[in-house]
């Protein structure tokens, strides 16, 4: 994607900073980068390790004019932030990037070791003689991606994929196991999962829609929705607060799960919630409409009283 660099440079003529990615020598993958000057923009890359959702930085930069390189899924987050009024449309310049699907670097590192340069070509990901099929280490959200192209953008970069989006992925691995569990088994499952939560709040901080940040109620002493103790019940309650506050707002970018340092499958909760919201309200976060819990039309709210 050589054309990205000139586009960023051009964007810098009208914005204060462009959010993009640069290669991290230590990690051997792309990491978020802030380009303030054209010279800095020479480091810009876009490859299949650019999983981070840079929209997370937008509310923090609300006082600046910001350019942002956005994949299809990232653009949904941007659109949602705009719909909720957290970000002004006029304050962002969206460089929409055609996305081939991002690989789960954790899986890559499991295959190749942390920091080994990952080379991605022709459906294979390779490094020092080892190769794996791309699909095997693709992020979950990228399988059956619903938005390969950005819903909102000012300029695009890269060829739009000519392939039809893949069908939604069949639940596999933990998703399959979870789906088959009884309610009681799920209760135990979450208790086990959250026994290793350390309350680092990486999930919250990596989430573009967790806009409360510093004043998040989870960490407030009062009123005490979740205790401060790092134990399974309290950590679980803390996460439920986050999930509840994301109802009708989560765009499914999977950043919380990617950020979790102890590998808790948070998306099981959010995917379920997003599905229910879509089923009940026909609403999918990341468009122009306000979330269904902030607005409603009484005339069209004609549910049965007792189901």
């Amino acid at each position, binding site marked *: 994607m050589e054309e990205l660099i000139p586009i960023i440079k051009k964007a810098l003529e009208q914005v204060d900073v462009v959010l993009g990615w640069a290669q991290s020598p230590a990690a051997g993958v792309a990491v978020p980068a802030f380009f303030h000057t054209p010279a800095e923009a020479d480091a810009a890359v876009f490859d299949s390790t650019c999983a981070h959702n840079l929209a997370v930085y937008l509310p923090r930069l609300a006082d600046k004019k910001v350019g942002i390189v956005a994949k299809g899924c990232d653009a949904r987050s941007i659109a949602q932030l705009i719909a909720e*009024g*957290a970000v002004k449309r006029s304050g962002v310049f969206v460089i929409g990037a055609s996305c081939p699907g991002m690989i789960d670097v954790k899986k890559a590192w499991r295959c190749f070791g942390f920091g080994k340069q990952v080379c991605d070509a022709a459906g294979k990901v390779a490094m020092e003689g080892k190769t794996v099929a791309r699909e095997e280490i693709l992020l979950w959200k990228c399988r059956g991606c619903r938005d390969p192209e950005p819903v909102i953008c000012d300029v695009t970069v890269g060829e739009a994929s000519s392939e039809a989006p893949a069908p939604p992925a069949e639940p596999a691995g933990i998703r399959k196991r979870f789906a088959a569990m009884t309610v009681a088994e799920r209760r135990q499952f979450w208790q086990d999962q959250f026994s290793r939560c350390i309350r680092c709040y990486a999930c919250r901080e990596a989430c573009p829609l967790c806009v409360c*940040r510093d*004043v*998040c*109620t989870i960490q*407030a002493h*009062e009123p*005490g929705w979740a205790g401060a103790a790092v134990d399974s019940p309290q950590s679980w309650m803390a996460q439920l607060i986050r999930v509840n506050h994301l109802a009708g707002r989560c765009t499914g970018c999977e950043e919380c799960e990617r950020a979790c340092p102890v590998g808790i499958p948070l998306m099981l909760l959010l995917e379920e919630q997003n599905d229910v919201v879509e089923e009940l309200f026909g609403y999918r976060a990341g468009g122009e409409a306000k979330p269904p*819990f902030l607005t409603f039309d009484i005339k069209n709210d004609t549910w049965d009283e007792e189901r």
Partner: protein
Amino acid sequence: MLGVFICQCGTNISATVDTGAVAAAAAGMRGVAHAESIQYTCSDPGQAAIGAAVREKRLDRIVIAACSPRMHEATFRRALERAGLNPYMMEMVNIREQCSWIHADTGEATMKAVDLVRKAVARIRAHVPLQGGKTAAVRRALVIGGGIAGIRAALDISAAGIPVTLVEKSPSIGGNMARLDKTFPTLDCSSCILTPLMVEIKQHDHIELMTNAEVDDVRGLVGDFQIDIRRRSTCVDEEKCTGCMICQEKCPAPAPDDFNAGLCQSKAISVAFPQAVPLVASLRKQYCRRFNGGKCRLCQKLCPAGAVDYGQEDEVVSRSFGAVVAATGYGHYDWTGSYPTFGKGLYPDVITSAQYERLLSASGPTGGLIRRPSDGAEPRQVAFVSCVGSRDESAGRPQCCSVGCMYTAKQAILTKEHIPDSQSYIFYIDMRAGGKNYEEFVRRAQTRYGAIFIRGRVGRIFPRRGKLVVMGTDTLAGDQVEIEADLVVLAAGLTAAPGAGELARKLNIACDETGFMAEEHPKLRPVEAAAAGVFLAGACQGPKDIPATVAQAGAAAAKVIGLLSRGELETSPMVSAVNPSRCAGCFKCRDVCPFGAIDKDRLADGLVTARVIESLCRGCGICNAACPPGAISLNGYTDKQLLAELVEVLR
């Protein structure tokens, strides 16, 4: 330090809950310095005991376990105030309606009561003193509905020097009472007693009368309602029209005569009835030729006052009011749908009592002669059927209309007076004649006027040789009866007035399951609606006769006068408040607030946070539930208070 008082409520509570044991358990709770069980806490000695304990033990928070807070919360708040405490440092525990009265087992009920007290003790630790504000109250009242209830209320309120706006949906005030011939049990003429009051309304300096008008939108709250009133276009300039009725005479377009209950036709442009107030014509566009593509301009041409204006449009008038009286009256039950065996309205000589009232009336379509609609013949045999759409579960109408027995007896008497050789038959379930001189009146109908009362329901009405056969049971004789009548009068039940539900919604007040507007408490607050500052007068609250209606209208007027005479109102401190240091500025609160009570505030350091406009906030707490960081709280129902309750009750 905390004080806990456990009310015995005589034996209402103590019969099932061991109040002594509850007090003992309360005494052991953290921070409780005083706990006692009192026979009647709401009584004078009960309240004095609270005051004494507050002084002696320097209590600063009080828990009272007694009846429902809906009953006595206000009482005890005042008691705290008298004891020198902030009235909001009190929490009530409902151990009567929600404990002693619904459990039989003493052990179980006592344990639950202790649980509930513990919950309140936990909650009250999170209480903070709250201070209500004061706002000026607008010295003007709105009365909705110009029947006898609205008229009486408007006159009584204005008598105290408080200006009133009286809004009436139809072209004239007078309502249902103006349609009646004579009234029970005195048989005085309805018009004779009502018309002077109608005129008084029109002439009163302090009363602004708006007919053809309806409430469009209601904003604000007690003391300062902003209400939009829509005045429907009648194409007649009310100022110019003299009520000469030339337009009505010459108008070529027929239209139903609403005043005469559809028994005859009127015109598209007409005066509602000869005694109408205001005595002005109004044009109903749906029937007018000009408004249906025709070229007719007759009324405009002929009007000597030049009052007809086809271009007149609806006008929306906005006014501020301190209080509202709803006096929308009642509507008539449409029996044709639920009583197919009565002929579904196909027999012209099966009429309702409201129609019969017009046949009896000297101002009615027959000039006071009883003539049956089908052929204009004078009936000899008249059958009255009570409780049509009343006291009938199968029609989904279990309620009593409360006036049917009496007016049926009255109509039987009047029938005999009009046609001396007539015979009335009255099918009834029970004769309900509870009012002063009512029973004597019914008895008179039987003895002096010879009406035959048949106790039983009517099954079918069908035609036979030009007459109508009323077939029913005589439950006293245990036999089937068939009465061949010339005219059948159905005592159709009373319903809530059409549009009452919609109005209630605008006023934010409740309706009961029968559709009538609901009072706050059937005994203690019988004229107050659920929204503060809204009062009920007359049949809008439930079917009632004229004496009861006038009495309630007077009571509603007294409430309005009491409310507005002080000039200012205390506002509830139980509104939302924002803690700016916790606000993330996401404004979800503003999105969900039904009252537009959230505004943006820019702090000194440039942070933008939410701010509550207290005068608009009504204290629903929806914002509190929608605020992710918990920055906005509803005073009195904060997260901290609810969580304290919740956590404690589950321990």
